[in-house]
């Protein structure tokens, strides 16, 4: 144990500070200090992906980095995705449409991973979707309805982007 340090993190567009031990993972900092509990601990050794957050838009394991290392990055958690309280974003809604989940534990990470994929590839093939989510283990679904959700989201985003400028 060593003396706490203050971290200043850019989370979901806002600056948040916390006093944490240097050994505190980003995951524990987000969950315990900032009360952002959408990121989940699954294996805490970087395999299952349940703790996935976006770091400058790219999926990263919040369990594999210390909070102090996250300084200077744009962090996005699942709590930053909904456009308004009670209102789902397009990707979130697509997961509901196809029931791309069961217990919901890996879901925030899957949704974030899908966001990152669709941000860099607006019309991914099935193989590209499989590759993108292969670092996120889901024990419930066998992935079929998750893949369908991302396909649905891609189609809806394309329509949305064609119709309304600046849509998500």
């Amino acid at each position, binding site marked *: 144990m060593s003396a706490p340090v203050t971290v200043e993190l850019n989370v979901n567009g806002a600056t948040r500070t916390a006093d944490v031990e240097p050994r505190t993972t980003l995951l524990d900092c987000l969950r315990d200090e900032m009360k952002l509990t959408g990121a*989940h601990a699954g294996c805490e050794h970087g395999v299952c992906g349940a703790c996935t957050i976006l770091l400058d838009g790219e999926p990263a394991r919040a369990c594999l980095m210390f909070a102090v290392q996250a300084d200077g990055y744009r962090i996005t958690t699942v709590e930053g995705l909904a456009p308004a309280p009670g209102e789902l974003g397009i990707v979130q809604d697509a997961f509901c449409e196809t029931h791309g989940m069961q*217990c919901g534990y890996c879901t925030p990470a899957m949704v974030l991973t899908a966001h990152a994929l669709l941000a860099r590839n607006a019309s991914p093939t099935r193989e590209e979707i499989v590759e993108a989510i292969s670092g996120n283990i889901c024990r419930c679904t066998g992935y079929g309805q998750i893949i369908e959700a991302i396909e649905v989201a891609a189609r809806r985003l394309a329509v949305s982007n064609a119709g309304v400028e600046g849509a998500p």
Partner: protein
Amino acid sequence: MSAPGEFRFVSRDRRVREDRRFVAGRGRYVADIERPGMLHVALVHSPHPAARILSIESQAALALPGVRLVLTGEQLAAAVEPLMNGLDTPHVQRYPMAVGQARYAGEWVAAVVADTRAIAEDAAELVEVAYEPLPFVIDAEEAYTPQSTPVHEKHGSNVLLDRTFVWGEVEEHFAQSDHKLALRVTWGRNSTVPIETFGVVASWDPWSDTLDVWASIQMPKYADQIARALRLPGNGVRVHYDVDVGGSYGVKRGIKHTVLVGHLSRLLNRPVRLIEDRLENMRSGDAHGPDRIFDVEVAFNSDGVVNSMKMRALDNAGAYAGRAPFQLGKPIGAIVGPYRIKSVRYQAVSVTSNKAAQEAVRGFGQAPTNYAIESMMDRVAAHVGIDRLEVRRRNFIGADEFPYLIPSGTRYDSGDYHTVMDKVLAHVEWPALLAERDRLRATGMLAGIGVAACLEPSGGNSSFEPLLNEKNNTTTWMESVRINVDALGTVSVMIHTTSSGQGHETLASTVVGEALGLDPDKIRVVRPDSLASLPGNSPVGSRMAIMMGGAAHLAAGKLIDKCKAIAAHQFGCADEAVDYASGSVIERATGRTLAWADLVGVAHRNHHLLPDGMQPGLEATHIYQVPNASELPVDGRIQMYPCHSFEFHMTLVAIDPILGKVEFRRYVIGHDCGVVINPHIVKGMTLGGIAHGIGAALMEEFVYGEDGQMMSQTFMDYLLPSSHEMPHVEIVHHCTPSPLTVLGQKGSGESGYLGAPAAVSGAINDAVAPLGLRFEKLPIRLTKISDAVAAASPKQDRTL
């Protein structure tokens, strides 16, 4: 699937209501629960598979700032009752932590409580335990021998259960049969390994003598077991059911965790939390699945018709008994699979060893048994030289033979196995699939087709308990639903369990909405805590569509009856002269109608308009007993689960002969679970079950070394199927309604997992058969395949 035309909401393409909170990160899992002043637990583990505990020195740990308590197994055992055993094995005692002796590597020896989890873990490393290592046994066959070292000395041997059942004229049928063959297949120890580990928060309130519990739990009689172990009255424990469980598939039974933290909270008068980390979960959480060797003898005719089967299942239960031996009992309810096998001898053997203890895993022993039966059918087909499909066809129970009584005493409710298989064959265009296999073979790949036909017994009861333990006379196995219509006319449905992804809120609202003719989206589903709950048995045994669905439907029926009585009283006619439809009651003869708002108004505000003696309000409760299973066993025969879903798997795999990697080229499942309540949920269960089965077939195993240490301790050693390993699965639907359930529904929570291991194993064995190879132990890892293929191939073939 049933014709959706019969229903407005059931079987329809409707969203799963739980999903909204999960995609927003607003699930409420146990690790999200915070209580003021909450303390944290870390455990001290035995490094030895068997060792006497000589001393536990905790001063250094206690000296660390922030550490509140170190509790040893012995101290805990003095304050609590032993945990429940399923069998009558009083000398196989189990407490949450080791008492005097550790019995597996990783077993809890002491608990450390501190202000933070990190401090607790730091302190756990400072606890010094002196051990005297003892002899140990890991292998089940060795444990079964009389000379093996008993894991529990007082019990006298390692045998927890050794029971032989003979159902029918086995010896006669063997003598009369043209052919016999014997096989051995082995099911490796794996588990469901949910991504959320088990966790529990307990909070003792000394001012109300109440223990509040929030847990990631899926367990029948959880509150009762906590109360009994902690010597509290039953109403002294309040389990909060409004906790989302991050996957379970059977294993989240955390009773030892809960008794430990419940006691710690009582000692410290503070909320205490224990969340397993991944190593804790895999090595010490007592959540491994069956670990089983099957020796099968089968007697059959030259036409492939199977007459009789002798099966010995030897299961390695691990260090404590728990409910593990019952996982040998449940498959008795489908011991002949979908086949017309006339007689069976079944020897169920459960032994203790110095591995971690077992817990219930998806299917409760049925998946391993199905793997053995299907391996047997493939061998019979090969022996008589008849196609595997044809042999199955000849042995299937016919659609006109239901209800069908199997030799072990269970009646199968309904099914149409021939049609489901034929639909799958038509879907895959069987000749084309064979041609594709042969084309792959011609390219130098190993290629094979696997099939598996199997049953998913569903509805859940505990008939295996009285069958295997004569001191247990339980025949009741119920689920309850309460419906309340408030004075504004909105409907709330009370369910009495946690859920781990099964969509029970969707299930209950859909069924109640269907029955009442009201929009399910406007029905609220509420989970009272255990003190406010009606009796239930949690989502085990593929039972909730049948049992919660049944209770919901029957409660709605009572509500309708009350509405009709209110209206008939208004109309001055008999109750039988009115109909209920979509919230209104109509007098058949006159068309006079009392609308929902009026019915609610009379019930809540107009006592003067109520029929004499009728209670005010609009509420109904139904406590639903499992259909068709209320008898104790007679002569070793019993009705196990009431309903029987059927699934027919077919898969084509291609294997690179050098790498040994199994690639799925096609995966089709024909699935008949009766009337489907929510198609999205059933589809997900089926696909997820197949993924889990593929893991069991190819990757997942808790491996123990000769030194008694568990070697697969991380997700880099215990491999879970990712999206890369999972094929695109095509589902062929069929619906044979159950005559025993309210809507014709059957269970589907275990589907996929029950047949996938057999199908995948069959495909691999079809692929390597030309090399004279056969794999008879799961998992069939790629290294196993590549090594065996290399050894079997002529030398020049191996040079790259």
